[in-house]
């Protein structure tokens, strides 16, 4: 078998070109059916009741009135008030019951008629102020991580040495910056909320689940229903957003299946918007107090940080070992505590940890530039030798490209020293990021029919990012066919086991399996053609709908003629990939990425407007340039959202998530994003690495880049994201009024 490989750079017919999504028209016309759109005969609608309190015990649940509501068919309880442990609720919105009814209205009335007796307990929901969290007894044990260039001498007390060494390093620093930075929790805000429609045929369950993991969720239904996964089909043709929050069947999904079984009717249970935001995942917050020491050129020599944040009752907070982000200064002390709050649980949010780590640490690097009066660009450049991922050269090249696109040198001014037009000041900021994005294990089947038809099967899913199109491009490229010749079948757990879609692993994974399967299939077909033509199959190429002797297009057959040689049966080839220690010729892992923001700030109102945003990104070999750019646009816009607008607002009085309705959860609109300029960095050194995923990287840097641009405009750091007029006002008020 030939080695798997990609065409040499510049020789591919389809790879690297800009292709519309093959399902784009279906989506634009509404022909595409999302999980929420699934409507089955005799289907019941179920709605969930979320707990109104942030912390309480459920003493009793009375459903007698709810049962009498006309149209109510079935009521399912998530909480057993008699179970001492399970009756305690620790965040608002935790599901207590759900009601299935003939109509959505009857289900809602049924939910409203459920009478629950609560014993309300003390809540704590605001983690921003660490002292308050300490007073409330909500702070966990600190983890401390120290790395110093020098070591203590023998018999020297280690703690005393660390203190002495840090003091020496700060004393020797040309600039010392002490700062406070933070970023609030946000939600995933999937346009399509979490949920499913479940239907039974005898003992077999079909779950139309809005999911990022078609292949991984059948078992999650099976186990609590005391069945095996072979009797479950998870189906998802189109999903309206997941961003890391949709890898699970969830308790409400299992409840949906149970009610369907009990009533003998299909049931749809999708979360209402406010419950969706309260319980279906959020991104943890992160706050940090930092002391940074740098030399006169702005090269950071010492970093000391105390970090805190919350992932809810017990969930993960931001990893302190990622602070400072990307940069590894030679001397570091990093401690972190987790604050337990009565807030909904976290789930992976696009590039888990990275956006927060970047926003709360590369801001400190920018403040070093401000303190020394040096161009921020030069401070980032001079600190590149310390990057942990050995991509200093990539960053340097990307910075140069980004600076040209932004016209950085011409526009830059020292922090707070730019010209004002009325009350409007402008500024520039930048940040850099990193991510893995390597392929994971998976499989697919490529099927070539004797009439030349080609189709593929994989238990993967398309989050809307263009996975179907990538699969078709890889297969069409290999067979030398037009894109439209390949039919892609995904979205069923009955198809070959494939990747979940998260962590930027999808494009690498499906490119691996589909290239392998189609190269293997092509080898079989070229062997048959070679036999017929009396030449070595290895001398044949597939291009322009024909298979022919390389260099002699006349000496060959059409694709259909070639496939007819298969005889009666279609050719089915399985493509499998599993990562190993041996580097794959088709995919790789690890990217850099540089982003720059230009903002204008109205000092009188604190309103920030995006003027221009530049994103330069490496991603190895690009399959579909158009959807790659779409990913970058999406990431940048999502980043502008959390930098300037998005925030889960927890009310201290009620413990409630008070902006959990879509009308109150602020998001940017098209008029808020300014001009976005993208550049894909793809020299031969990148192309030859093969495919690397791109979903996460572009969303990481906007928080820090925009915060840095606001600081450059104002001459004052607005320390906590999102940067709202309230926070700009607070920051400006804290410093003496400028002349």
């Amino acid at each position: 078998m030939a080695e798997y490989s990609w065409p040499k750079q510049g020789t591919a017919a389809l790879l690297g070109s800009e292709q519309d999504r093959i399902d784009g028209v279906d989506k634009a016309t509404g022909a595409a059916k999302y999980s929420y759109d699934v409507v089955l005969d005799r289907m019941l609608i179920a709605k969930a009741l979320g707990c109104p309190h942030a912390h309480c015990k459920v003493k009793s649940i009375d459903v007698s009135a709810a049962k009498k509501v006309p149209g109510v068919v079935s009521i399912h309880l998530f909480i057993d008030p008699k179970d001492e442990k399970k009756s305690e609720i620790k965040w608002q919105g935790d599901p207590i019951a759900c009601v299935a009814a003939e109509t959505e209205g009857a289900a809602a009335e049924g939910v409203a008629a459920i009478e629950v007796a609560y014993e309300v307990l003390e809540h704590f929901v605001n983690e921003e102020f660490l002292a308050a969290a300490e007073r409330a007894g909500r702070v966990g044990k600190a983890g401390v991580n120290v790395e110093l260039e020098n070591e203590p001498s023998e018999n020297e007390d280690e703690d005393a040495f660390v203190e002495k060494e840090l003091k020496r390093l700060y004393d020797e620093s040309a600039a010392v910056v002490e700062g406070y930075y933070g970023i609030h929790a946000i939600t995933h805000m999937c346009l399509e909320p979490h949920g499913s429609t479940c239907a039974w045929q005898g003992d077999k369950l079909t779950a139309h689940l809005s999911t990022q993991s078609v292949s991984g969720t059948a078992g999650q239904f099976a186990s609590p229903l005391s069945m095996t996964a072979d009797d479950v089909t998870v189906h998802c043709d189109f999903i309206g957003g997941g961003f890391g929050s949709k890898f699970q069947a969830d308790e409400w999904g299992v409840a949906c299946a149970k009610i369907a079984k009990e009533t003998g009717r299909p049931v749809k249970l999708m979360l209402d918007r406010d419950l969706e935001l309260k319980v279906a995942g959020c991104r943890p917050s992160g706050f940090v107090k930092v002391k940074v020491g740098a030399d006169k050129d702005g090269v950071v020599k010492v970093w000391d940080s105390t970090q805190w944040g919350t992932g809810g009752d017990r969930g993960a907070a931001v990893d302190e070992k990622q602070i400072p982000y990307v940069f590894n200064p030679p001397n570091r002390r990093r401690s972190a505590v987790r604050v337990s709050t009565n807030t909904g649980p976290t789930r992976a949010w696009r590039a888990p940890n990275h956006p927060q780590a970047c926003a709360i640490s590369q801001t400190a690097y920018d403040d070093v530039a401000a303190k020394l009066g040096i161009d921020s660009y030069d401070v980032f450049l001079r600190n590149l030798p310390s990057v942990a991922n050995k991509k200093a050269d990539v960053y340097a090249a990307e910075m140069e490209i980004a600076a040209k696109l932004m016209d950085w040198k011409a526009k830059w001014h020292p922090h707070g020293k730019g010209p004002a037009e009325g009350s409007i000041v402008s500024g520039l900021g930048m940040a850099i990021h990193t991510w893995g994005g390597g392929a994971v294990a998976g499989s697919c089947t490529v099927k070539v029919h004797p009439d030349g038809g080609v189709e593929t099967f994989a238990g993967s899913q398309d989050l809307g990012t263009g996975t179907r199109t990538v699969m078709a491009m890889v297969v069409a490229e290999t067979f030398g066919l037009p894109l439209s010749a390949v039919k892609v079948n995904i979205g069923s757990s009955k198809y070959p086991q494939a990747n979940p879609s998260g962590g930027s692993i999808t494009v690498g994974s499906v490119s691996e399996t589909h290239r392998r399967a189609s190269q293997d299939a092509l080898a079989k077909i070229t062997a048959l053609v070679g036999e017929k033509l009396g030449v070595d199959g290895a001398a044949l190429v597939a291009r322009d709908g024909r298979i022919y002797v390389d260099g002699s297009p006349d000496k060959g057959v059409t694709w259909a003629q070639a496939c007819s040689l298969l005889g009666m049966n279609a050719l089915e080839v399985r493509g499998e990939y599993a990562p190993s220690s041996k580097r794959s010729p088709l995919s790789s892992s690890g990217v850099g990425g540089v982003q720059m923001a230009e903002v204008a700030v109205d000092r009188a109102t604190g309103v920030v407007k995006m003027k221009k945003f530049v994103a330069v990104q490496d991603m190895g070999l690009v399959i579909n340039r158009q959807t790659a750019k779409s990913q970058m646009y999406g990431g940048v816009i999502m980043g502008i959202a959390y930098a300037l607008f998005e925030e889960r607002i927890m009310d201290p009085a009620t413990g409630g998530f008070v902006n959990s309705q879509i009308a109150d959860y602020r998001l940017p609109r098209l008029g808020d994003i300014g001009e976005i300029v993208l550049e894909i960095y793809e020299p031969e050194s990148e192309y030859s690495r093969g495919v690397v995923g791109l979903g996460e990287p572009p969303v990481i840097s906007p928080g820090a880049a925009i915060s840095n641009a606001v600081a450059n405009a104002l001459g004052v750091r607005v320390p906590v994201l999102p940067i709202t007029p309230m926070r700009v006002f607070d920051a400006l008020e804290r410093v003496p009024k400028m002349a």
Partner: protein
Amino acid sequence: MKAFSFAAPRFESEVLELLGETWGQSEILAGGTDLVGLMRQMIVAPERVVYLGNVAEYRGIEADSAGVRIGAMSTLDDLADSAALAPYAAVTQAIRGINSMQLQAQGTLGGELCQRPRCWFFRNGHGLLADRGRLVAEGDNRYHAILGNDGPAKFVHPSRVAPALVALGAQVRLAGPTAEDETILPIEYFFRIPRDESERETMLLPSQVLTHLMLPAVDGVASATYEVRQGAGPDYPLAAAAAALRFDGPYVREARIVLGHAAPMPWRSAAAERAMIGLPVTPETVKAAGEAAVAAATPLASNRYKVQLARVSVERALLMAAGLETGGF
């Protein structure tokens, strides 16, 4: 949403027969952009919904030498597109600022004035006054009132257009409770600050309907609305002000200045108005008016920034009314 009966009368007499005597019996449906959400959340759960879309006399914009008479069922787009409204810059600016094709095409003038507050305690089921103001005082009040908040009501009035209409001296016509009852009153007195949960944000009784709005002839009055909007979308502004000025040469002879999103009702500032009388509109004079407008502000724990935003809104509304640059976004 609770099940309800639906009525779509064609005449005012029928409307008034269908309305209940207490809140909860009926709600009026105009464009539905607010009511439907309130009903879905069960913040209101009327037994009957009375739709006004079929009442022909509640539509239309008529202008004559006395001014403009607008049916309450006119959509916000109808107003923004009307030549008769063009001289009332404060009104059309406020409507354009809503930044939502859907709200502007579907929302009506009457609904815009009668929409319920966006206060998140109210919208999350804690009542209009949120435990007699306690939850707002102790909770997250970043978007709440900085003026007129000494009583239990601490929400901000949500209307985008009301400050302009108060500044321009508009009147409203209310019909009911019986077919013989008609009330005409300055819109300034249509709004009120509720004192307990039995009251709402306007003088409208459950058995009454807001039918028309009358704007006096422009007669040399220059007006403007300025809103501090965080973004380009339909989110409510953080602060707003409308100004209507009558000049005597370069000097302000009469001024009406009204703050929006600052108090539980559109908040007319007599102090700011006095500060402008007899003076030209300059960056210095508007600064003094802005100061005067917020001199009596009583911000809550998290909304001191709104005092600054209200001050700037007054300054910029005055500058815009005088045709000057604001110097900001």
